[in-house]
């Protein structure tokens, strides 16, 4: 059984701007996932906090941390505490909501991001499990409803067309992942309204190299790599 924490640097690290690894550094990482899913800073975002996040987000700098991530900043970027001003300057519409109810994904450090970018709506359910490590529990975008089961990193590849073509394409991606012949941990999510299109999620044991990302990018028109 693979643990939620895999690397010694999940424990010793991250190097970050204070004050909280879960409510600040982890929040930056959740924002960064939002940035990747939206393909950049969203035009409009509603940031919904639950439980401990709802109670202590102001004291922990969670607001500017999430916005930093949405802007694409790293947790140790000195601009992190000024992220709200940066986002306001580029005209992003941001709303914070302190939800009263329990977390919909059953974790006290939960945030849900409802984002709009270029007319497309994207939602992300994530939690910060401690020490800066996060979990992505649900993603809704482009007609897909994805519920990942394992820790990051993860790769999502959109496939359509005949089953034979899809199988061949997946085999090529698996070859790049270096998992040839091994049982690959993957999950297939059909599009809600179009069963011929599907999103394939791969659970990865370690981060992809730049070369691997480039090669996979050339194999599919739509990929999302979350780490």
């Amino acid at each position, binding site marked *: *059984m*693979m*643990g*939620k*924490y*895999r*690397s*010694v*640097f*999940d*424990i*010793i*690290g*991250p*190097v*970050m*701007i*204070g*004050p*909280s*690894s*879960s*409510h*600040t*550094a982890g929040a930056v990482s959740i924002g960064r996932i939002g940035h990747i899913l939206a393909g950049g800073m969203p035009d409009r975002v509603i940031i919904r906090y639950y*439980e*401990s996040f709802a*109670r*202590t*987000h*102001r*004291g*922990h*700098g969670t607001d500017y941390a999430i916005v930093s991530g949405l802007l694409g900043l790293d947790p*140790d970027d*000195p601009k992190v*505490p000024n992220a709200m001003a940066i986002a306001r300057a580029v005209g992003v519409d941001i709303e914070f909501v302190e939800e009263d109810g329990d977390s919909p994904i059953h*974790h*006290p*450090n939960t945030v849900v991001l409802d984002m709009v970018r270029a007319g497309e709506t994207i939602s992300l359910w994530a939690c*910060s*499990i*401690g*020490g*800066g*490590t996060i979990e992505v529990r649900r993603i809704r975008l482009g007609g897909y409803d994805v519920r990942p089961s394992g820790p990051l990193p993860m790769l999502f590849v959109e496939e359509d067309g005949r089953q034979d073509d899809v199988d061949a394409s997946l085999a090529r991606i698996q070859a790049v992942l270096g998992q040839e012949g091994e049982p690959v941990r993957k999950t297939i999510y059909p599009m809600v309204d179009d069963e011929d299109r599907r999103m394939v999620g791969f659970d990865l*044991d*370690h*981060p992809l190299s730049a070369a691997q990302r480039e090669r996979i990018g050339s194999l599919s028109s739509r990929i999302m790599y979350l780490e």
Partner: protein
Amino acid sequence: MFGSIADLVSAAEESGEPISELMIREECAGSGRTRDQVWSRMDRDLDVMLAAVKRGSEGRGVFSKTGLSGGEAALLDKYRRERTTLSGDTMVRALVAAMATNEVNAAMGVICATPTAGSSGTLPGVITALRERIDLSREGQVRCLFTAGAFGLVTANNAMIAGATGGCQAEVGSASAMAAAAAVEAAGGDPQTCAEAFAMAMSNLLGLVCDPVAGLVEVPCVKRNAIGTANALICADIALSGGTNKIPADQVVEAMKSIGEAMPASLRETGVGGLAGTPVGSEFRKTIFGD
């Protein structure tokens, strides 16, 4: 990946290597990176820790925006230089390093989370003491971080390290236990002695709640790291002398987990109960946030 502290200890005993070395090898295998890459990343993390200690203890120190914390590490250092301390010079230097780190954290400075930002002062405090007391080399200091990381990984995977899920026992308690194990290895103790020190340090802080005033990582967090450091050094000494915890480390981790799960939400990083809920604690919240 090590499933338990018992696994970690028996793997180290079988190979005849220190736990830090096992952690380095495991990290190389898991990440696909070379030993040099893994080592130099940890070396940089140590630099960040030492820089935060320096920044928080030099001159008048650093102060948070809210005014709730700051300047007390520098004050303690000045006191140490001018007076005869009650707990001894090495101990007080260690406490200065621990508090300085968390004051920098509260002032939104750069720190290295070990395992969390709220508990980031505990390990630098212990490393400062080891440098003073046994003249621990740079290499030895980096090794401390790998040893601490190995124990922290088991704790994080088998219990929790977030105040919101397990209270302060999961943050400063874990940091203190990790640091105690690292101190034992640095002082030449064997893997089982590391595990005893870990078990003792965690046992001593079981039940500690996370009750940050105004929801800020300042009061009581800064001084909780001072106790994390002192507790780690005390438990390392007891273990090195041959003292044992009686309850094995893995079962202490299990106990920490079940205590964390039994804690009410008001005492798990919500800024509601405990010190946060006292009249003065509530007053601070009103003054800082206006509600």
